[in-house]
């Protein structure tokens, strides 16, 4: 499911800029489709970001995050080649994981 997450981690001075784009409908459970049927809630609840296997940020989300969620975070102490992983879990038990190496900015 790596296709679900696009990400980039660039070392810029002391900080590593991590940008993440996830593919997800983020349905609130309130929207109606063209047939006037309520579309069931389907949204990411938990995103975990780790650096070399150690969790550095955990995000809990409600339905208010936009469709195809976007994130920028700043990591400290990472070196070129260090591994950054992003995992998400949604309210239907689906999940995706993607991992990349830190590159020089």
């Amino acid at each position, binding site marked *: 499911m790596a296709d679900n997450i696009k990400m980039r981690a660039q070392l810029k001075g002391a900080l590593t800029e991590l940008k993440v784009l996830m593919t997800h409908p983020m349905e609130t459970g309130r929207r109606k489709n063209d047939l006037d049927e309520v579309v069931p809630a389907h949204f990411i609840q938990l995103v975990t970001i780790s650096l070399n296997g150690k969790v550095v940020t955990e995000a809990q989300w*409600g*339905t208010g995050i936009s469709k195809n969620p976007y994130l920028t975070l700043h990591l400290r102490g*990472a070196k070129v080649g260090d591994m950054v992983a992003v995992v998400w879990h949604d309210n239907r038990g689906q999940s995706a994981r993607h991992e990349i190496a830190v590159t020089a900015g």
Partner: protein
Amino acid sequence: MKRRGFILATGAALLSGMLLPLRALAAVWNKAAFEATTLAGATQGLQVDKETPSADITVNAPDRAENGAVVQVEVTSRIPGTEAIAIVVEHNPTPLIANFLFAEGAEPYVVTRIKMAETAEVKAIVKVGSRYFTAGKQVEVLENGCG
């Protein structure tokens, strides 16, 4: 049977780093706070008793958003010991948008895109130990983005 057992075990090992049983996720996700339909309910769910305004928190968001479905928000906390940044929007159907918990190795900084139902203040609530600080930015929303 043996072969199937092996495949299952291998699959489980491969996925263990990625899959979290639903029950475990339910224990982590703050259901009371995220499902609250009032700002007071959301902050209560986060166990915030009182938040103090702080000039050391910056909330960057547009003055006007044409479409409330996608509003980019940037939050920076310069308060030492920041553990978490929650983003709340009072006039949304469920005001709590997100709660970011930072461990050593991550700066208390985040950029994300949120949905806004109507014109409101985008508020950041920063947790520092048992104390809470806040800052906000008023965003005029021209089109409801909460579907």
